[in-house]
């Protein structure tokens, strides 16, 4: 059979499949019959493409078949969206186990808190490092801090608290995601973490100075949401570092496979960090600025620390034990 006859026989099939692909790509409403028909047509066209060479079809037709099969393939094997059902296992089993003994998270912890403590000390001891706080924060930020915390915390409107919570979600989670993403290249990531650690540390040190106005208000404000927020920063940096390290020390895998495996482990950790950021943002928006007595805010901080310990240590050990069995 010559190409011309073959074409005449098959062209209707192809045109029909072409039509259905266009329809399927804009709407997902179709009857079972249509699905069956689509699959049958797709298989037929696959067969035509497989035999295109033997059929001696002209190259233009073959490349048309390539494109047609590709488009039909993507309508048949579709993206599944976000698999919410697998998330609970991911968050309550995989993430704690992954984090518990992760050297990168430990490194990020030491790196972040070390720089934080250093910056806090240097900003506090104005007599030893006279220009440190000025250089790190800048006059404007320092003035803004004093103004913000100089007056006692006021009771805010609910709507205003919602706005602040939204701001913290947007701002802090954004920083966390940036830490995570840029740690892929190690150096920029470490710079971002360093920057944030120095900033936050310097603010703490500066506000702790006896001559600064608003010291008490400041510490009253930051107590409640501190555990969640700072842990989330460390977690996102640690997850990012795990990725950045994975493609350098591949442990025998190809770089591509090593990074793929690390991604599978670390994206859920970043997800957990985002949940922590959201939690911190709500505490920061609603509890931290409120007029609740300080012990209650302290209790919130203790409770959230306990939740964190329970999550990472208890669940982590349990996951390890269940994996060992």
């Amino acid at each position, binding site marked *: 059979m*010559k*190409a*011309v006859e073959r074409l*005449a026989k098959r*062209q209707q099939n192809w*045109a029909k499949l*072409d039509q259905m692909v266009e329809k399927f790509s804009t709407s997902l409403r179709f009857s079972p019959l249509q699905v069956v028909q689509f699959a049958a047509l*797709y*298989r037929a066209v*696959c067969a035509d*493409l497989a035999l295109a*060479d033997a059929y*001696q079809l*002209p190259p*233009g*037709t073959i*490349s*048309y*078949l*390539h*494109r047609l*099969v*590709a*488009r039909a*393939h*993507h309508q048949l*094997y*579709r*993206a*599944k*969206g*976000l698999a919410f059902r697998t998330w609970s296992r991911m968050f309550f089993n995989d993430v704690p186990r992954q984090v518990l003994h992760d050297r990168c998270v430990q490194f990020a912890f030491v790196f972040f808190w070390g720089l934080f403590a250093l910056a806090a000390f240097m900003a506090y001891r104005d007599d030893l490092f006279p220009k440190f706080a000025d250089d790190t924060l800048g006059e*404007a930020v320092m003035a803004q801090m004093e103004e913000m915390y100089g007056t006692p915390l006021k009771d805010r409107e609910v*709507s205003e608290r*919602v*706005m602040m*919570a*939204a*701001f913290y*979600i*947007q*701002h802090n*989670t*954004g920083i966390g995601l*940036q830490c*995570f*993403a*840029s740690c*892929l*290249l190690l150096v*920029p990531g470490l710079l971002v973490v360093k*920057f*944030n650690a120095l*900033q936050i540390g310097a603010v703490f040190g500066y506000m702790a100075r006896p001559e600064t106005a608003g010291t008490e208000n400041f510490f009253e404000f930051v107590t409640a949401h501190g555990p969640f927020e700072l842990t989330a920063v460390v977690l996102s940096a640690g997850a990012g570092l795990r990725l950045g390290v994975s493609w350098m020390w591949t442990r025998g895998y190809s770089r*591509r496979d090593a990074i*793929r495996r690390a*991604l*599978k482990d670390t*994206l859920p950790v*970043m997800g957990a960090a985002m949940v922590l950021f959201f939690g911190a943002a709500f505490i920061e928006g609603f509890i931290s600025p409120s007029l609740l007595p300080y012990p209650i805010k302290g209790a919130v901080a203790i409770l959230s620390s306990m939740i964190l310990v329970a999550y990472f240590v208890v669940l982590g050990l349990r996951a390890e034990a269940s994996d060992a069995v």
Partner: protein
Amino acid sequence: MDTAAQVVTPENIAFEYRVAGPFLRLAALLLDWLIIGVLLILVRIASAFLLSFAIANAVLLLSVFILMWFYGALFEAYWNGVTPGKAALRLRVISTDGRAVSGLQAFGRNVFRFVDLMPWVPLTVFWGIRAETSGFSGAPLFLVALLSATLTRNYRRVGDLVCGTMVIVEEREWRPQIMHVATPTVVSLARQIPDTFRVSRTLRRAVARYVERRSHLSPERRAEMARWLLEAFRGRYPQFPSVAPDLFLLALYYRIFIADRDRDEAILDQHRVQQGAQVTPLPGAPKVAV
């Protein structure tokens, strides 16, 4: 073609895509950013009318957060690898193994866009504004993405490399067709091509490409291109008449794709030609002047 990526499907056949280049993808990205910008303005206006000042601000901040970090991920996960910008340019994100992207892949490749857009130039450089400590406050230079796309096969940016994805073009090509070349001259010439002449795969492809495109070529150029084949052919079969090279290629095309080699078929053809009838053209096949 160096811009083709091959994939083997569960049906056990291999097919090819055209991979999208960096600048097509940049256009799609800018289009998406434009859409995000318009959406934010709409949210701002709508919330300003409907809600109190603080709540309106909260809604705006949350929309900024969601659109900035999750716009691409949500669309790609639920729209089968396509965002509105990509849809407009007929691009699609797929796994390198040819399957659809998973939710994690879609999320990951959009988070790592932050790295791809590096280095961020602080706005201080342009307007003397003190660079904000975070957020997309600088101007992206896209250098990492450009570098990674040039250095890898299939123009993959860092986010693609990490998540094992690539972006392809979904072309709707022209309808498949056989060129209508069956004039009496061509048919009679085709019958003079000896039965022993076997057409190789590459020759078949070359002849088809030539005939499909010859309407764009000037007569001189046609002669120039076709001459080589005719000379080689006449070297092997000296008894073949010396005709216009272009005509020879048409005859070869006819012989390869349209006429059957079988004797009786040829006789039938001859009969039809004698009666002045032509081989029935396919619907939609364009006429080719000979």
